[in-house]
């Protein structure tokens, strides 16, 4: 076991962060609100870097990495507030050729579609599989989104679309995982912004970060972020172990969760399924709450400035809010985990 980032993984994070700072500086990101959240040129650069083909095997033209790495990349994208249907586009890479792809769960009645103006296609998940709906088929009435970087529109009824996959196993978990990764990044970005302000803003003749009320708030932001990050990375490793693609499966390649050994390459049995669900739902709760609390604390540390449109604090918070209600409420995730507590082999 070595649950620290490898040198390659560190280089991957640094590379993505450099790309974000070079191409998605905060002014550019704010500007994207004017063009539906996606600029095709910039989006193409993300695609060329391999952001959306991370988990596509090399022989199919992808980068051939695992979910753990996808989590690391999405964490950096969240930290930089990069907008757009990132989750849908990555997950779509294996089934469709479109370049800007949304993802939504089919529900009865009207749907709220994110980034409707810029989509090529929308993937719809339901009990029978995954369906591709051409963006041209959507009749959208724009709504005012809570998050300027997540435009949304109402669609009275989602078209049936054309089936692109029969199984949906793993889709929701993967979407939840990637959203959580973005949120860990948001929690980090908000904490960094708050700490920087606490160092520079002076009141009573000293930096406000010298006051414990502020310093301790920042420490709590960091703790939440670290705990959420640990749970996210763990979930990424569990996903790689249970549903690949990921590390090559070799004979004698064992996994060990909570006191039970499973062998890789086996069909996903009950135990692995439980591990997966528990890890992903756990990361979901911790990441969503870390992003929410850190967003609020970031506003608070900025005082009056924090309540302005000008300061970026609200962007972290609003993005965190936009990402939480997808594929199950936090309450639902908590209930899913509760079902597995008694079954924990540790007990």
């Amino acid at each position, binding site marked *: *076991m*070595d*649950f620290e980032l490898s040198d390659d993984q560190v280089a991957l994070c640094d590379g993505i962060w450099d790309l974000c700072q070079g191409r998605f500086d905060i002014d550019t990101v704010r500007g994207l609100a004017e063009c539906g959240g996606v600029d095709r040129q910039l989006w193409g650069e993300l695609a060329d870097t391999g952001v959306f083909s991370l988990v596509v095997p090399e022989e199919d033209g992808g980068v051939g990495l695992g979910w753990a790495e996808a989590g690391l990349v999405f964490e950096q994208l969240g930290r930089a507030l990069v907008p757009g249907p990132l989750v849908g586009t990555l997950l779509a890479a294996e089934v469709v050729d479109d370049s800007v792809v949304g993802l939504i769960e089919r529900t009865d009645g009207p749907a709220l579609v994110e980034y409707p103006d810029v989509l090529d296609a929308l993937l719809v998940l339901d009990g029978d599989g995954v369906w591709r709906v051409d963006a041209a088929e959507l009749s959208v009435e724009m709504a005012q989104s809570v998050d300027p970087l997540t435009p949304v529109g109402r669609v009275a009824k989602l078209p049936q679309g054309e089936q692109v996959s029969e199984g949906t196993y793993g889709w929701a978990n993967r979407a939840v995982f990637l959203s959580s990764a973005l949120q860990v990044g948001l929690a980090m970005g908000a904490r960094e912004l708050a*700490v920087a302000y606490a160092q520079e803003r002076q009141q009573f003749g000293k*930096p406000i970060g010298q006051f*414990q009320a502020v310093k301790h708030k920042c420490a709590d932001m960091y703790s939440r972020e670290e705990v959420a990050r640990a749970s996210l990375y*763990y979930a990424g490793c569990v996903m790689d172990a249970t549903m690949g693609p990921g590390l090559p499966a070799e004979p004698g390649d064992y996994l060990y969760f909570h006191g039970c050994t499973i062998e890789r390459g086996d069909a996903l049995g009950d135990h692995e399924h439980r591990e997966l669900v528990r890890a992903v739902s756990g990361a979901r709760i911790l990441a969503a709450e870390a992003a929410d609390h850190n967003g609020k604390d970031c506003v608070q540390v900025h005082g009056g400035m924090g309540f302005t449109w000008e300061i970026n604090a609200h962007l972290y918070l609003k993005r965190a809010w936009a990402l939480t209600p997808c594929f199950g409420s936090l309450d639902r995730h908590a209930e899913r985990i509760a079902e597995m507590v008694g079954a924990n082999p540790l007990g």
Partner: protein
Amino acid sequence: MDIRFSAEEIAFRDELRAWLGEVLPTLGDPPDRDDWTARREWDMGWQRKLYDAGYAGINWPSEFGGRGSTPTEHLIFLEETTRMGAPYVGMNFVAQLHAGPTLILEATPEQQVRHLPAMLKGEEVWCQGFSEPNAGSDLASLSTRAIRDGDHYVVTGQKIWTSFGHVADYCELLVRTDQEAPKHRGITWLICPMDLPGIEVRPITTVAGSSEFCEVFFDEVRIPVENRVGDENDGWRVAMVTFSFERGTAFISELLGTMNQLAEMAELARSVPRNGSTAWDDDEIRREIGRLQAEYDALWALTKRVVSQAQRTGMPGPGGSVFKLYYAEVKKRMADLAHRMLERRSLVLAEGSGDEQTGGDMVASRLYVLSLSIAAGTSEIQRNIIGERILGLPKER
């Protein structure tokens, strides 16, 4: 990042499991909380069994009699022993988890030969004499005085909150050897035998009604200079080494034990009546159980990160402060949840391990958890450490 255990690690675990499976059924019932003689026998007896089976000092280097295992094997050891319900390290805590490791890094060969094998065999109970009535969070302001007299230090002063002070054979003692120097530079780390003339130990009763810690009074106690660990006036640095172990891996069994408790609580919830049904059918309660599990799983993952860092660098990473701060709060919530479930039955405090009917140790646990944000550096101090050392915010003074 690779959470998989290697073939050697799995072999190690299987062997350990087999041994635990044989030995645990022979142990009998654990002693009463207040029977200190029996508790000493129990804790030391278990340590001796570990020693005989080659599991003592699991992470100590083999040249000092340890098993020389990697941090990951140490983690497996703690996971398996907790999972299978082996005795907790108990009063061997200080010797095994921080005094021993400190001696390995800082002590003279004579001191090492004198103490390390005895610690491993379960022949020496150690305690930690750091805190004083006027030096808690501000530990460096401690004032227990040591005056050099030939080849002895003559020690006078008082320590407090000394866990297991009344049963300990030795104490890791911090004393002031230079009154004039800045406070961090006049401290010395001594090995103090607890049976020296002039030492008086008075147990203090805790909120839980137990006597886990003591006041220790020193009246001109003569401690040989050869008992000094590190240089005179270099004791603060040595104490920091001690702390890095105390805050590093020391909470692993605690966390795993807590996960076991949560599983018991989920069981209890299914049988406790509530609103005409059971507590389990109350969505709020079920969700809180799920959330607690998510947070413990995350802390377990964080622990694996800290251990992996230790594996690479040789020292536990700063994740220890984050862990301790976060864990204390989550565990308090779990104790509160037990009370919500038990309703009027939470009035009854039962001893020992889980009593199905009253949720016994869950009630006691609500008191015990109060110490988690105080002992080994309060939560406020942990937040200062994170804010200043990790985030680089300006120091208070």
